[in-house]
């Protein structure tokens, strides 16, 4: 009987370890909204720059989206009351932050130097953006071992090819379609998945 009780206690400890490790990895953080936010920001920037031809449309929209995202993250963290970090989270964050800084630097530098007019050379502008988004999505998908996000990267790479070989109209359609699929649809899907995971206590990645 004593041996049976000891065995039960040992099994109980092993179960506790498994449960707590799973609990520690479970994330209540959400990232889907960031894809949607940036998708909407890109669409807003495209619409604004095409309708008004205002040369600061892109920088203003991008800085606005960046400020809005920072405010939302800050508010979420403050309300959350706890914080955890691990290498995976930092790697994902680094990938997207590096992509954002690169996009900001190259597009602003090209725009202000008048070496790339987005209206005269829309292919180049869209190819650069698509390349950056493909790189960030691919790196993130490899870190998370997530095939669906790698599919998003593949869509962006296909867009790069279309932008390099297609007409301005074909490039624009491909870019807008990729934006809708990989930012809005993917973001909404992620938000639904995160909400379900929070409800069920399941976890992703």
């Amino acid at each position, binding site marked *: 009987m004593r*041996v049976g009780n*000891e*065995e039960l206690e*040992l*099994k109980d*400890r*092993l179960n*506790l*370890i498994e*449960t*707590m*490790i799973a*609990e*520690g*990895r479970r994330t209540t953080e959400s990232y889907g909204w960031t894809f949607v936010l940036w998708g909407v920001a890109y669409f807003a920037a495209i619409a604004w720059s095409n309708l008004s031809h205002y040369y600061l449309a892109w920088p203003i929209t991008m800085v606005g989206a960046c400020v809005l995202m920072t405010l939302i993250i800050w508010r979420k963290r*403050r309300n959350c*009351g*706890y*914080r*955890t*970090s*691990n*290498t995976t989270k*930092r790697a994902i964050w680094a990938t997207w932050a590096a992509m954002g800084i690169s996009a900001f630097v190259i597009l602003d530098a090209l725009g202000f130097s008048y070496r790339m007019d987005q209206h005269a050379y829309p292919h180049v502008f869209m190819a650069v953006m698509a390349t950056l988004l493909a790189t960030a999505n691919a790196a993130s998908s490899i870190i998370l071992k997530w095939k669906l996000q790698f599919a998003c990267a593949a869509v962006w790479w296909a867009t790069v090819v279309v932008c390099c070989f297609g007409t301005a109209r074909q490039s624009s359609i491909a870019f807008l379609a990729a934006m809708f699929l990989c930012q809005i649809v993917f973001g909404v899907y992620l938000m639904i998945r995160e909400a379900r995971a929070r409800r069920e206590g399941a976890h992703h990645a």
Partner: protein
Amino acid sequence: MPELPELNPVIHGKLRLALLSLLIGVEEAEFTWLRLKTGSTDGNLGAQLLKLEEAGYVAVEKKFVQRKPQSLYRMTEAGRQAFIEYVQALKQLLGSAIGGQE
């Protein structure tokens, strides 16, 4: 017959084991997060974390964020090693218990 390993008494306590299991999956965690995950009281949690700290298994960093005190806990290398050894010993003991019944 091989000698059965002893279980580390510092880690064997339920709450301390739960805390180390949580901390092994994250780089650092706030006191409030550990309290939420374990469902423990402030007093008990603080006491168990202090025992782990005294054993050199966790390190704590105390700071103020927006004028509020914040305690960040992280597992030390010694804690990681002791936890791995504990799990191995536990599995070995369980294996021998199951083997002994057969």
